[in-house]
């Protein structure tokens, strides 16, 4: 049972060949039922887990993979231990056949240990699988990843990248929160994360609303969808997503991309820099800088530098590849003190 109030919108008749362009015009998350039903991997998954494993191993050439393993008591929640002292799982370097064997061995356990291989580059892990089991990425330069595990829960987190996630085996429930729900999600540390991204500390299936009262408000805005093999979901950049693998064997293939020039770095780096140099300023100065950021960054437009001769606009003008290089060098020098 999901406590989310809303369902994720479904869009029909999406052509896999142009799915990326189609979602580019969507501001909101969208479910695309059956988008990838004809992938051979999805077909195999409908037959049996054993067939699916064999199909995968046909492509596997032995590349070492990283996987998370956790004790049964964690219930599949990839998270922290008590008091956020450490993570509640162990990261190991292993092989894909070991991952599949472990999942299969514990498939009918009431309380299996958690086995989760997440975010592995598809071309690295299973060379050739992508030819018939991924969306055509075209000019998006999308990175294609594969996620294989038993029952798992990954707490709500955001990604900077646009995402089309395709369920290939098992079932997956996605609970999405709009970016503006940040303050209602009780997000944990940003410099000590379970798997790279900061996560909501609220247990979505058993929320402690006395401890996390504003989470009730987040639930008002939450959108949920359950996906079966062949179904796909568009998760817009910056949307918080809580992801549950619901069967004893789940496979997801996702496509991540960014519609911004390559020279742009990670926005979270700018946030960290602002925490270092702005957050602890005296209040009047911080206020002033809020105005500066609005003026130069958030409300930036043709008017911002219109009064400056074009040849003298510098970073206030159009930021091309070369200009970005200069900024990077300047920042690097200034940071080293």
């Amino acid at each position, binding site marked *: 049972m999901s406590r989310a109030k809303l369902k994720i919108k479904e869009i029909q008749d999406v052509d896999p060949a142009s799915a990326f362009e189609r979602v580019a015009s969507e501001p909101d998350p969208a479910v695309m039922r059956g988008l990838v039903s004809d992938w051979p991997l999805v077909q195999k998954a409908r037959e049996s887990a054993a067939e699916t494993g064999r199909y995968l191993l046909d492509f596997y050439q032995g590349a*070492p*993979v*990283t996987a998370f393993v956790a004790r049964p008591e964690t219930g599949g929640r990839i998270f922290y231990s008590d008091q956020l002292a450490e993570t509640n799982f162990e990261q190991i*370097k292993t092989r894909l056949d070991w991952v599949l064997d472990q999942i299969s061995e514990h498939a009918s356990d009431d309380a299996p240990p958690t086995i989760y291989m997440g*975010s*592995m*580059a*598809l071309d*690295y892990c299973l060379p050739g699988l992508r030819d018939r089991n991924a969306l055509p990425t075209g000019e998006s330069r999308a*990175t294609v*990843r594969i996620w294989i595990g038993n029952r798992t829960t990954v707490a709500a987190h955001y990604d900077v990248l646009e995402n089309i996630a395709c369920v290939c085996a098992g079932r997956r429930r996605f609970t999405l929160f709009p970016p503006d729900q940040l303050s209602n999600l009780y997000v944990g540390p940003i410099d000590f994360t379970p798997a*790279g991204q900061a996560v909501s500390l609220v247990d979505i299936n058993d929320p402690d609303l006395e401890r996390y009262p504003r989470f009730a408000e987040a639930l008002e805005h939450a959108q949920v969808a359950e996906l079966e093999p062949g179904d796909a979901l568009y998760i817009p950049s910056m949307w918080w997503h809580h992801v549950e693998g619901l069967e004893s064997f789940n496979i997801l293939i996702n496509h991540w991309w960014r519609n911004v020039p390559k020279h742009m770095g990670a926005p979270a780096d700018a946030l960290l820099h602002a925490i270092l140099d702005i957050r602890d300023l005296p209040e009047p100065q911080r206020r002033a800088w809020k105005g500066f950021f609005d003026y130069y960054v958030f409300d930036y437009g043709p008017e911002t530098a219109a009064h400056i001769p074009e040849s003298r606009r510098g970073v206030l003008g159009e930021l091309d590849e070369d200009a970005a290089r200069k900024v990077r060098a300047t920042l690097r020098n200034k*940071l*080293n*003190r």
Partner: protein
Amino acid sequence: MTRHVLLDNVTHKNLRVDKAYRKGAGYDVNLARVFPVEFVHLQREYPLFFVKNTEGGHFEPIALLGFSEAENLFLGDDGWDAGYVPLSIQRQPLLIGFQERLDDGVPTQVPVVHIDLDHPSVSETEGEPLFLAHGGESPWLERMSSILKAIHEGHELNQTLSQLLVGLELIESLVLEIAFKDGSKQTVKGLYTINEEKFAGLSANGLEVLHRGGHLRDIFLMQASLANLDRLIERKNRLLPA
């Protein structure tokens, strides 16, 4: 003793490194691992050989600094007595370690800087600081980082060079038997060098393979360096009673 730890700008904020090349300061070794990128400088001062890597079985180029273990004939009263110091000596007490990271979905060994806290050059009082006042890298650390990077790339080049030379059967073992002027003798084992005869008899194809990766140059420089063996013996003789 060594104590290698990941270098960080909080735990090690006050550390300094005193690069004084003298006996008992951590440089008492009779060979230094070297890399093709520095051969051109090395061949003017040091005899260059190969030693066999005990773990990987491949051959690694070294500069010979002395004839018995811990004998470094380049450590003089006024520092390192040569115009060029091998990178693997310059880098000390820093070294390369590796951290596992997922890079664009691929498990990757990322090189990171480690420090040997037990190296005699390390203290909180003497020498160059590692970090600037607020945690940035000192000019010395920046220079060392680029040396470590060159070494990291050099290890890969060394492996390629070794594979090619083994493939072409150009490596032969060598035992140095040296008589010093006081009548004492010393045998140095475990060294390897290029087999001159086989090298001279290489086919055009073999030469082409070596030349393509720039390794012909490496071989010529190593061969030229062997003239320095006499100079190294001379260094030793100067220390001996007449």
